[in-house]
């Protein structure tokens, strides 16, 4: 079973275990997705499937994109993503992927785009300690020293400094699937997922999970 689906982040919520413990969960709206292309070692050098999500109007996409979907015998799909496979794909072009590819208890990785934080300082971006707030300290949120003096005589590359933060691809690994609603295309995972509500996400089988879900 190819465990891969595209969707949008719904919102966070909470549920209770029977013992009354609160479990923080994220509700994801996933699929239905369609296989738009099957890539193989022979033709592309690697095995993969390309999956499309969210039907849209032809006008929204370029002619090339519309044609690509048409070739697969599908309506125009807004988002296309590839999943690399280790073995030749089991799914054929046009196959539908719904939330039921996952089971409750599966471990999944969720890829999304984190919230953009603009030009952020070292404290927010890298967790710098900052200067003292009191006792006459005037360097409240400063980045501090950039390095030694005339030896080396330069700032090392990769020195953590203020700059653009967020709005970047991020993978949240090893989230547990705690609920599925195939009818409403919902997938419930324990924990947080990158990005804002409504952001595009990819869900796939956890690559590094200790308890490997049967594939």
């Amino acid at each position, binding site marked *: 079973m190819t465990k891969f689906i595209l969707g*949008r982040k*719904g*919102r966070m*919520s*909470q*549920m*209770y275990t*029977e*013992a*009354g413990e*609160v479990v923080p969960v994220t*509700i994801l*709206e996933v699929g239905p997705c369609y296989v738009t292309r099957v890539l193989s070692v022979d033709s592309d050098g690697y095995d993969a499937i390309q999956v499309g999500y969210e039907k849209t109007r032809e006008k929204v996409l370029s002619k090339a994109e519309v044609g690509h979907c048409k070739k697969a015998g599908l309506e125009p799909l807004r988002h296309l993503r590839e999943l690399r496979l280790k073995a030749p794909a089991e799914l054929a072009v046009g196959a539908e992927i719904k939330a039921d590819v996952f089971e409750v208890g599966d471990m999944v990785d969720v890829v999304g785009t984190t919230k953009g934080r603009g030009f952020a300082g070292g404290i927010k971006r890298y967790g710098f300690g900052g200067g003292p707030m009191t006792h006459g300290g005037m360097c409240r949120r400063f980045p501090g020293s950039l390095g030694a003096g005339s030896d080396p005589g330069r700032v090392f590359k990769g020195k953590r400094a203020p700059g653009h933060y967020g709005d970047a691809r991020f993978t949240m690994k090893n989230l547990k699937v705690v*609920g599925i*609603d195939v009818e*409403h295309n*919902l997938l*419930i995972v324990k924990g947080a997922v990158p990005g804002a509500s*409504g952001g595009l996400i990819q869900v796939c089988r956890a690559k590094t999970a200790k308890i490997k879900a049967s594939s």
Partner: protein
Amino acid sequence: MRCQGQHEEAMDKFSQFEKQWMKDSLPAVEIGDTVDVAVKIQEGGKERIQIFNGTVIARRGRGPAEAITVRRIVQGEGVERVFPLHSPKVESINVVRRGDVRRAKLYYLRDRVGKATRVREKIDAGGKN
């Protein structure tokens, strides 16, 4: 970007799904009410029910996360407990007495002692019950 209508519809879908984590009905608890909250507690493998009696001073959260804060005075010391309304540990909530208050959060009670901590009783509660 999807249009507004679609998104609202989606939010409603999430709320619908959340209902399965919620109790079917909640007691009509309002701010200022004096309540008996029956809580399940584990005691050495055995489960029993403990009653926590006090005044509802706050209600917060939505959906499955909705919770009330109950305040009571124990041996001269103020004790507050937050009860998630949909938690399976909260067995039942009984309203003992309706309170007549004009605020959504009764945090001012924390600064009061003795007789001043009393909340006026709502006499005309007919419409609410």
